[in-house]
Each structure stands twice: as C-alpha cells, then as structure tokens.
C-alpha cells in the first residue's frame, strides 16, 4: 500500500494532486447534498420566498392557493390571470418591490386559509 502511494507520488505528482482535489470536491458536494436533505426534510422550511422569475400561476402552485388569490393579492387588473408574466414585469409596471408583494401575498394566503378553516 505505502510503496504504491510512494511510487505514484514520485512518478505522477500532478495527477495525484488532482485526485486529492477531486476527492475533496466530491466531499464538499456530498456534505452539501446531505445537509440539504436533512434541512428540507422539515416541511416548514420548504416555503420559498418570492423571486422575480416567478409567475402568478406558479406562485399559486407553490403556496398551494388558487391563482386567483395571487391575482387579487397583487392587484392584477386583467380580467383573466395573465399567462407567463414574471414578477419582474409586474413590479416594473406597478412600481412595487418584492418585499411589498411578499407582504401582500402572505396576508392573502393567511386570509384564504382562515376562510378555508371556517
């Protein structure tokens, strides 16, 4: 074993160093994957904050509410829920920010669940 490592080290220093590095990279990816799996096994932590790329329909799906709830929360005045309109565009049109939209959505979702509970 040792003489093999010694022989590899004397003849192939660079590939041996590369091997050590790739193993370290595997370790980093592996621990990150495992810690994420543990973290997300708790469903409470699965709630995903709003981001600019999301669409109203997608947000409805993600927050488990009908898309109409999202539409009302964001004051989207179109008669039907706009297809594939990203929050970036909605924010630009309304002059709103992710924080205000998040607050309005959270309130609307809470109200929806309260109604549902009754």
């Amino acid at each position, binding site marked *: 074993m040792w003489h*093999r490592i010694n022989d590899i080290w004397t*003849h192939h220093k660079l590939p041996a160093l590369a091997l050590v590095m790739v193993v370290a990279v595997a370790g980093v990816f592996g621990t990150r994957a495992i810690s994420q799996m543990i973290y997300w096994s708790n469903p409470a932590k699965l709630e995903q904050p709003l981001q600019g*790329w999301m669409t109203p329909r997608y947000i409805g799906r993600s927050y488990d509410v009908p898309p109409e709830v999202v539409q009302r929360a964001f004051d989207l005045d179109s008669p039907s829920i706009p297809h594939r309109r990203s929050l970036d565009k909605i924010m630009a049109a309304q002059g709103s920010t992710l924080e205000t939209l998040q607050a309005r959505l959270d309130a609307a979702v809470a109200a929806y669940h309260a109604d549902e509970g009754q």
Partner: protein
Amino acid sequence: MSELVLAFAADYGVPLLLVVTFLSCLALPVPSSLLMLASGGFAAAGDLTLWSVMLAAYAGAIAGDNTGYWIAHRFDLRFSHWLDRNKRRARLRKRAADYMEAYGGISVFFSRWLVAPLGPYVNYVAGLTGFAWPRFALWSAAGELVWVCSYVGLGYLFADNIAAISSLLGNLSGFLAAVVVAGGLLLWLVKSSKLREMRRARRVRKASKARKPRKAA
C-alpha cells in the same frame, strides 16, 4: 447566470429551453438543469404545456449532443496528422479510442443524466476518437430521454420549491461526477504504477540472466 436565465424563463418559455439545453451540451456554462426544473414547474402551474417543454428540452439536447460530436469529428479529420505527430498525443488518443470502443455506449448513456456534468466532454471525446456515429446517436437519444423526463418530471412534481430541488440535484450530480472522475484517476494511477513495477522486475530478471553466463565462464 442562473438568475439571468430564470428571469427570461417566463417571457421566452419553450424556445429559451431549447437554446439553453442545446448550449449546455456543448459544455457552455448555462443552467440547463435549473431551467428544465423551472419549466416543469411552470407546466405544473399551467403557464406552459408539459409536452412542449419535454419536446423542446429533448430536441435541444439531441441537437447539442450531435453538434458537439460533429465539431470534434471535424477537428479530428482536419488535425489528425497533428495529433499523431506527437507520440504522447497519439498514445492518449489511442487509449481514449480503445476505451470508447469497449465502454463508449454505456459512457454516453450515463453521462447524459446520472453524471450529467461530464456529458459534453464525452461528446467531444466520442467525435475525436472516431466512435461510430449511429452508436453515439442511439445511446445519446436514450440517455437524453432519461435526463429530460427526470428533470422536467421532478420540476413538475416538486413545483412547490424549484430552488430547493435544483440546488439539491446540482450537489448530487456534482458529487457523482467527482466520484466518477476520482475513480477513473485512481484506477489509472494504480494501473500505471503496477505496470512500472512489472517492468522493473523484468529488467532485474534480464540483468541477472545476463550476468550468470559470465560467472559460469
């Protein structure tokens, strides 16, 4: 880069997915896995249709794989004499060709989805070593089917939290790719060390044989 591509996902939908999967098969650093997951999520929400998402991702991937293969193949035809002029380069290519001949199909298949980060490089190696194109195209088509169905499917199923599933899959596939590369490196290092040992032993035997008759005389 991920942020930028995601920002365009809602506006350009299916065509963007086609372009991004195409480019990712040429080893360009575009977040194709993330976009497939997000498009699957959009399909689940009703913003895109599932079949068009699948079709676009699949078409982009197949076109990308074969483009990578043909670029490398063209390069090989044109620079073959340059590759063969240097002994080391020629030997490396010969070894790669032998490997592809033995395990090429299965390598193409698994590097489409299980160890996806290695996929584009396998395309280039396949083209460079003269790996038969029909064999390449067939294994690539089979592997990409698994890749597209699993990523779009996971995006559809786990639409609740695309960011979480994307980051987890990224780490898992990075881990698998690193393990495969490490395994290959280790195998090669040990094999070449054993080869050196054998050569050394042969030299010692030869030397002692050469000495013996002199002693007898």
